[in-house]
């Protein structure tokens, strides 16, 4: 499974008037493509802070003390704001907790929905064009090296040319096809309502159907029947005005029939067709679409594709080979220079010189033709640099802090000697932990060496043919990004569709309204629609359903699940309600006081939960069969300005042992997928069973499921 996002050892604090609040204290998780990770915990546990850090929108008083968030080969904690623009909202989108404060109160909903779409559309076009050109240039350069005697430049340029023709054809087809699909859906809904005599807005909808039907007249979509369709379109409004409903329904049904037929047709192979149209001077042969596809495919393969794929394959191979050669050098260098970083005292000039050399070596191993970016190689430079910077910052300032510490400690002891307890605590003696920084750097180096060795070992198994095909797909995808323009009308139609999709009735009327004219649930749906508008890669949902009632909550959850499947979205779902995540989450991380206390698949957490806090969460809410008194968690979460020395949950934990108040528990491994941080899992700890209220519920649910299955059979 492809890992999308790594969060490692993330530590975040906030400066406040009262002191430094430690919101997140070293959390680790990974996010795989297409899965949902639920982060569960009560307010103040640091779950929102984590998600904000991923999106780079932490408030001004935050201090990122350490760790890394790696997405697409970049460390999000270190990249500049300009680069973040490309990621935030586009690749990683967020649904916020409070819909009222995440919508602009003085802009209409329509504007807020379409604004980002249009801006992002323009940016995407530009970016696609750039990356397409850059890749072709790299490819062409590499080909020149591999095949110096062949004119490869023209080949790349030819690819460029016909690829554009292909996309023109395809986008025209897609527009028409989408229009036909939409028209069929719309007619279906309208006819149903007309028969029930409950249709609203009929005039507008008929006009829309007419324009959609007209749009769908296009080669390969509605082709032969186009005259008939156009004639029918003209009959729609007269039929409506004559108030003869039966006639109107008949007209609509026949339009629907034609369009439905058109939708079912196989689409031609536009890629091959584009090539044929650009380079062959003959007209397109009149064949059935499947026959035509075969013919075009053959033509393309003979004249261009086989040759091109072979060339690309050679280029990729040579580039990869060179990269691997460089890796061998880099490994050697890294191993040699490792000692420099392990010294007890680092010298600034010397160490930065060594680092610059190493960085150059590592950068040389980057393969320009590789499509997926290698995150370790990419982040090595920035990662080590920031560690070094913090090291030398500490060198500069630690002495002052230590003096301060001595002074405070003396004062503290003086107060204590008088028999009073001071209401403040002594600040930490040093800003930067040198050992930790050095071990972080060494870790990064070791990890990179291991990574390189792995790649070199796997070198023989690589399939360059598949990689070449992937390259062509990548180029196709880039090019399609260039052709897709986002006009206002397109954005508006998409926005209306989104509004309908998230369950807002009369989207056309709502489109023009202001946020304050909506109820809480409706506002949240708009926020969700905005987040989905950019088609993000990773969707962070920060308590998206907390303000909504059950039906809408379940609709929204279904919506997110559906979108996740359709678009292969990766979702981070933040909530305080464990019930909500049961059908959403693949994996669950339970957070308390800035730490992950339990981590596992949803089956692990729900059926075999091991941490007392998870038990408390599971047993504190009633379900439909609860009659006994609820098992409330006493007290409130600890004040994170002075985090407890031991387990943060110890004070509210009825199973707390002495050690819980003294030392923080490490993450105990329960199974390959399941971890929990509680001393109860220590081999010497007394055995405590899962609370009865939870085991009872599991047993009850099991019985219910069996009964259901029996009922079905």
């Amino acid at each position, binding site marked *: 499974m492809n890992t999308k996002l790594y969060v490692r050892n993330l530590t975040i604090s906030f400066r406040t008037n009262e002191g430094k609040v430690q919101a997140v204290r070293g959390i680790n998780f990974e996010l795989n493509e297409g899965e949902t990770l639920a982060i569960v915990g009560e307010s103040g546990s640091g779950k929102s802070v984590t998600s904000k850090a991923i999106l780079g929108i932490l408030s001004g008083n935050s201090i990122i003390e350490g760790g890394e968030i790696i997405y697409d080969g970049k460390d999000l904690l270190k990249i500049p704001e300009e680069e973040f623009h490309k990621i935030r909202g586009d690749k990683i989108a967020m649904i916020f907790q409070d819909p009222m404060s995440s919508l602009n109160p003085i802009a209409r909903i329509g504007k807020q929905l379409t604004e980002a779409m249009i801006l992002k559309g323009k940016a995407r076009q530009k970016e696609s064009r750039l990356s397409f050109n850059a890749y072709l240039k790299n490819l062409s350069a590499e080909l020149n090296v591999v095949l110096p005697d062949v004119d490869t430049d023209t080949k790349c340029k030819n690819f460029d040319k016909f690829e554009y023709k292909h996309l023109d054809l395809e986008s025209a087809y897609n527009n028409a096809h989408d229009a036909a699909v939409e028209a069929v859906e719309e007619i279906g809904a309208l006819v149903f309502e007309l028969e029930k005599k409950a249709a609203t807005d009929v005039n507008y909808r008929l006009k829309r159907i007419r324009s959609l039907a007209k749009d769908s007249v296009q080669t390969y979509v509605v082709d032969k029947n186009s005259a008939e369709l156009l004639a029918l379109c003209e009959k729609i409004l007269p039929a409506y005005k004559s108030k003869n409903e039966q006639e109107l329904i008949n007209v609509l049904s026949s339009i629907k029939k034609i369009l439905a037929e058109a939708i079912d047709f196989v689409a031609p192979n536009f890629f091959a067709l584009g090539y044929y149209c650009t380079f062959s001077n003959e007209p397109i042969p009149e064949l059935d679409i499947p026959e035509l596809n075969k013919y075009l495919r053959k033509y393309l393969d003979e004249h261009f594709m086989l040759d091109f794929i072979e060339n690309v394959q050679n280029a990729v191979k040579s580039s990869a080979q060179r990269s691997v050669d460089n890796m061998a050098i880099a490994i050697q260098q890294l191993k040699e220079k490792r000692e420099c970083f392990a010294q007890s005292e680092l010298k600034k000039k010397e160490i930065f010189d060594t680092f610059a050399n190493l960085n150059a070596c590592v950068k040389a191993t980057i393969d320009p033709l590789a499509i997926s970016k290698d995150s370790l190689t990419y982040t090595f430079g920035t990662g080590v640099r920031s560690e070094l910077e913090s090291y030398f910052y500490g060198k500069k300032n630690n002495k002052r802090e230590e003096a301060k510490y001595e002074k405070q400690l003396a004062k503290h002891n003086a107060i204590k000697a008088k028999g009073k307890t001071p209401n403040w605590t002594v600040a930490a003696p040093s800003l930067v932990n040198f050992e930790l920084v050095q071990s972080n750097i060494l870790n990064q180096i070791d990890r990179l060496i291991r990574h390189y060795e792995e790649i070199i070992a796997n070198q023989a198994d690589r399939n360059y043919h598949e990689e070449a095909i992937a390259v062509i797909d990548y180029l196709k995808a880039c090019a399609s990004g260039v052709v897709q323009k986002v006009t206002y009308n397109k954005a508006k139609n998409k926005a209306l569709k989104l509004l309908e999709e998230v369950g807002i009735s009369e989207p056309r009327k709502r489109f023009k309204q202001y946020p304050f004219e909506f109820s809480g649930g409706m506002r949240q749906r708009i926020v969700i629609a905005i987040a989905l508008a950019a088609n993000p890669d990773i969707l962070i949902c920060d308590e998206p359903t907390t303000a909504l009632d059950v039906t809408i909550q379940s609709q929204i959850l279904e919506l997110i699940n559906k979108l996740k499947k359709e678009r292969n979205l990766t979702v981070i779902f933040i909530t305080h309600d464990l019930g909500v995540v049961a059908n959403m989450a693949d994996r669950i991380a339970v957070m308390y006081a800035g730490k992950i206390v339990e981590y596992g698949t949803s089956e692990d957490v729900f059926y075999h939960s091991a941490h007392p806090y998870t038990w408390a969460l599971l047993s504190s809410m*009633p379900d*439909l069969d609860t009659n006994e008194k609820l098992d409330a*968690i006493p007290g409130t979460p600890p004040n994170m300005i002075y985090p407890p020395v031991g387990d943060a949950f110890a004070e509210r934990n009825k199973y707390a042992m002495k050690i819980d108040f003294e030392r923080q528990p490490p993450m105990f491994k329960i199974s390959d997928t399941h971890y929990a941080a509680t001393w109860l899992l220590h081999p010497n700890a007394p055995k405590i069973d899962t609370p009865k209220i939870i085991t009872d519920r599991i047993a009850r649910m099991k019985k219910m499921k069996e009964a259901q299955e029996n009922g079905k059979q």
Partner: protein
Amino acid sequence: MENNNSEVLLQIEDLCQYFGSTKAVNHVSFDVKKGEVFGLVGESGCGKTTTGRSIIKLYNITSGNIYFKGIRIGAGLMSYRLAIKKAREEYKEKMAAPGADKAVLKKELNAILAEQRKQIKLAKFDQKHCDHAYQERQMAAVREKYEKLLAEANESEKVDLKKKFKNELRIARKTRLVTKIQMIFQDPSASLDPRLTVREIISEGLIIQGEKDKEAINKKVDEMLELVGLVREHAGRYQHEFSGGQRQRIGIARAVIMQPEVIIADEPVSALDVSIQAQVINLLNDLRHELGLTILFIAHDLSVVKYFSDRIGVMYFGEMVELATSEELFLNPLHPYTRSLLSAIPLPDPEYEKTRQRIIYNPLAEHDYSVDKPIMREIKPGHFVKCNEAEYQKYLEILK
């Protein structure tokens, strides 16, 4: 949680609350019996909160009657006005008919109009002075009590007694019936004044009611704080110094100090964290048994409502569609909307969740009300469903 008391404390009769053309609550009727918890559920915007607020007279209701302890505390005028309009039109037609005796008809019409106008006057009076009768009742009780005491007391005691008598009489004169219904609001931080201390917040109602004895007030506030699980020292603090659960406790204390008989809890836990929710629910449950409160519990979380309520009313777009005891409702949900609502409840069990099918409710597809309009019908003792004749027969079949 069986409740065998059949005394109706709160009676909502044909309640309508319109805001312009929006029919927020449309012909809703139900009774709340003494000592029970009545749950109102439905999706956001279905009018549950509006119903609650109409009952404590935060709005002037459009139509219908609200009775509390048998006294009409709220009355709407729309139904009478409609009756006048209808009568006028009817008689206009009658008079236009050939050979009609205009004088007789006019007399009849005038009689009808006078009757309706009288009703309007009565409704207006009740709406405004509903406490009048209650205050008289309270004052009489106080007088009776002290006359007895004064007659028996000697001279030295008399001064003290007279002072007490005066104080209590004033309170009785100012007691309003509506204060016996108190409300707990959804968002605790928004419903508490940030510039008042907890003591001021909790005692505000008492002071408005006419209590002047500071010591008595303080004593009562301390009592209340302890009752809801806070400590006396908290009284001097401001609301921002508390966590969400504690704020909600302050909100509850503010309601309970008025010695209400009915509490309207408008989504008291939905703005709170799960771990705190359980604390607040447990508290409300304890208070209810200790003080014998009657609670109108408004929420959208069905698991909580099921756990807490004796009877549940399901609302959909301003109308009540089903009303039954909570066991009955969850065992035999009849109205398609109720079934859709129940199918949407998430449970903390991944395997069950993966197979859960949500039923989608589409009123157009479910019902055919073009001929036969639906009304509330009793399918089973205590189980009401809004349906027409055909559906009634269908539901009866299902129950068999």
